[in-house]
């Protein structure tokens, strides 16, 4: 799987094959192209929703891609833009879910998320990592959490986050700076092994 360089020197995997060809095939209705696009970004989207505390992250992930694929004919852009678009949809769907939950409170099971991936060791590592990130994010202001997770998981730029959150780029930068400082303090206080 090709590697796409992203924020902070760490890398996000790219789709199988050339993205422009994949996009063109999907826009022509190729089912295989849809499946590749889904396999490429669905894990990251599901992880984002899970860390954000979504009630049904897997259902919401399907909903995000359903919306995206339904409107794929109008999409224009490269791989980074597609990724940003998908995460923007994911964030909006998450906001909708929270709004609905606020109107009709749903009992949320705080048990560890079900991550049936097939490999027990990987599943355990993923579960632990998810719990650690969620615990860290609990100490953040919601806006700071949104900015940092969209930046690190979605690899969105400041301007793209500003558009997704309907904030100014300056506000996003400030949220990012304060959020990172808060996470650093929290990790140092807890003595997270470095």
């Amino acid at each position, binding site marked *: 799987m090709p590697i796409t360089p992203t924020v*902070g020197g760490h890398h996000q995997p790219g789709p199988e094959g050339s993205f422009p060809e994949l996009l063109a095939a999907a826009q022509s209705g190729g089912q295989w192209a849809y499946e590749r696009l*889904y396999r490429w970004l669905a*894990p990251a989207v599901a992880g984002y929703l899970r860390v954000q505390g979504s009630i049904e992250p897997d259902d919401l992930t399907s909903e995000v891609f359903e919306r995206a694929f339904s409107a794929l004919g*109008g999409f224009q852009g490269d791989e980074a833009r597609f990724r940003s678009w998908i995460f923007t949809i994911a964030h909006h769907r998450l906001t909708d879910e929270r709004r609905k939950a606020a109107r009709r409170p749903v009992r949320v099971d705080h048990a560890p998320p079900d991550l049936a991936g097939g490999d027990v060791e990987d599943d355990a590592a*993923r579960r632990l*990592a998810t719990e650690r990130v969620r615990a860290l994010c609990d100490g953040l202001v919601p806006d700071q959490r949104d900015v940092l997770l969209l930046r690190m998981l979605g690899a969105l730029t400041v301007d793209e986050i500003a558009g997704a959150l309907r904030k100014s780029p300056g506000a996003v930068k400030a949220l990012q700076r304060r959020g990172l400082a808060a996470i650093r303090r929290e990790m140092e206080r807890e003595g997270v092994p*470095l």
Partner: protein
Amino acid sequence: MTLDGVHDDEMPEPSDDLWPTGDPVLAALAEDLRIVASGPAPEPRPGLVAVMAQGSVRPPEPAGRKKMLVKTFLGSLAAKVALGVGLATASVAAAGATGVLPDAAQHAVASVVSAATPFSVPDPSSITGVTAAAEDPSGSTTTTSSTSTTVAGGTGSGPTTTVAGTDDNGGTGGTTAGQPDNHGACVSAIAKDKSATSDTENHGRVVSTVARSDCGKTSPSTTVPGSTTTSSTSTSTSSTVANSSRPSNSGPGNSGNAGNGNNGNGNGSGKGGKG
């Protein structure tokens, strides 16, 4: 002032857009996030499976809202124009039906309405013809046709009485132009005019028929049971309108009729009496 001799506010501010690299704390967080985002994709739900299986994608939307706005504006403009034309047509038709349009326009509306609908509106051209006939000095009977009340004596054997548009006052009193609603005057005129019937019995019958009719009443379309309306009635009606709206067109010999208490009557005239 720092030790380097540089003021704090002179130090370049760190760019917020640049992600801090080489930070071991954030590196640990980034590693956790990489693990979170790894793994297999969740099982797609039926809705997504359907979208992927159909392979149909919504066609691209227009490049901008501008196009859509122009389209919307044009659509609404067409609707407004259509509404305006419809209202104007309805207004002209209504004006034509009431006969208040100028002659040329009235004629045009009458032609269109009679051609396109089963209705008819007053046509000044046909009225003009009657008026011209009425102005014919030799044709004194034409005035009769324009304003007379015709009471058919019945079907078959009964006498037919045609009452000229005279009134009690010889056309100058009692009933003047625009004063048609006088049933009593109408009946009285019939009763006094015995010249039309030969014998008393028939005269009484005629008077009785007229008394029971709507002669002189306001309702223009009421007919006497058993009566028949002839085509001359239409002519009479049109002529009445012409005379009432243009009293000056009536010739001197028509004064008795132009005034004619039969105007209201003319609308429903041409009635047949009982058989």
